[in-house]
């Protein structure tokens, strides 16, 4: 799917700056920010920045990739729990697949995620790397 510039740009706070929301009523950490707290359904939040450090909850090594990531196979894709409890789905980079394990300490780093051909939008975000 081609990358629509507006759709990519509106995710900058989430994907570039790791901005999350903390519910002012129950204290739940919500990432990305949304209108309604998934824990208590309150609607008031304060913004904070995620701690980029965490651990691998579970992972896979993808051998048959989508067209957007086909050139990267095999790549490690994981659910990472960050310090503070927020979870994200992301790639694990700079590591041999055989070295990845559940519980491995990782840190999110700013990386290129997708690009739309030679002249199109480049979308950035975060990948996990070993720490």
């Amino acid at each position, binding site marked *: 799917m081609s990358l629509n510039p507006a759709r990519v740009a509106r995710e900058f706070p989430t994907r570039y700056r790791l901005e999350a929301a903390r519910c002012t009523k129950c204290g739940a950490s919500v990432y990305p920010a949304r209108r309604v707290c998934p824990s208590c359904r309150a609607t008031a939040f304060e913004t904070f920045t995620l701690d980029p450090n965490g651990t691998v909850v579970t992972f896979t090594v993808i051998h*048959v990739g989508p067209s957007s990531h086909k050139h990267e196979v095999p790549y490690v894709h994981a659910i990472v729990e960050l310090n503070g409890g927020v979870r994200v789905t992301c790639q694990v980079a700079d590591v041999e697949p055989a070295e990845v394990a559940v519980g491995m300490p990782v840190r999110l780093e700013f990386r290129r995620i997708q690009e739309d051909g030679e002249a199109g939008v480049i979308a950035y975000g975060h990948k996990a790397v070993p720490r």
Partner: protein
Amino acid sequence: MRDVAIVGVGLSRWGEIWDASLRSLWSDAALAALADAGLDRVDSITVGSMSSGLFVGQEHVGALLADELGMPGVPATRVESACASGGLAVKAGFAEIAAGFSDVVLVTGVEKMTDVSGDECTAALATAADAELEVFTGATFPGLYAMMARAHMQRWGTTREQLAAVAVKNHGHGLLNPNAQFRSRITVADVLKSAKVAEPLNILDCSPVTDGAAAIVLAEVGVARTLLKGRPLVRLTGIGHATDVIALHNRKDVSAIPAAAHAAAKAFAMAGRAIKDVQVIEVHDCFTIAEIAVLEALGVCAPGEGGRQAASGRTALGGEIPVNVSGGLKSKGHPVGATGVAQLVELTTQLRGEAGKRQVAGARVGLAQNMGGTGASSVVSIVEVAS
């Protein structure tokens, strides 16, 4: 609420069917179900289709298919909840009759998946996950279920061989089903040496891409009694539907599928039944780990026991509680919008005692579980035959 029965069932051909279109596959299933019911008119039509737009560039398929059946004028509703679209079409038809809007509803599901390339098909299926949080980063459906499988192995000691046992069992069942897409016996060794898709899952852990349609005719139970032609009355006595967080990472336990448990609890409450009353089960085995996690959610076994159960033979034909005797999605095929309806085609066939070599002896109560995404939608139906 009025009582509902299943009075007709039908399937199209299932497989990679280059000479058939979405509308012709759908019509074949619809005509078969109407003929089975002995009806030539219905009050209403429901259509489950996950993504006719992405697969064949056609939306508005409710009206299209009513027209195709020579029934313009009949209200037709297309419903969508990813791979649970078929189950949702059943729920929509059930609700219409229960509420008194209709006496007879043609409930259908269809997907024509092979008119697009493999990449386009993968992309269409991926729309059932969270586009921004999962798919953007390179997620695939096999990859998400693979993460569920790894978590299950980590937490419960489930083995790679136990995952394979699900595929081996369901292919064994599919051998007995003339409608199944892949009728070939496979071994645990075959699964383990098949191509890696998303570790720990291999290609033989995955359900196939399938063109196909399924249809059932639902009727208010009084109407249904006039259509029996000597066959047993198969009632749809319970239906439950539940959702869950859509991104797998937001599920507290990523090795479990709680929406299936919630949907089942609602269906059991409506039917006044419990899992111990059920003799035949069709579940959504889109990947081997899915059958394991769903059977735990349904209470067929204790949490964490799904892998050992698969390897034990308990859920095979002839076992204590046969699961996916149709071959399941794994062997029968998985035209995503049709699957939830096809599960009820199989259960009705079983409860009528017409399932031939794959007949579960003495089956009187059946359960179908259909789901979308990594379990963010689930629909559970209970069917039973009057004694």
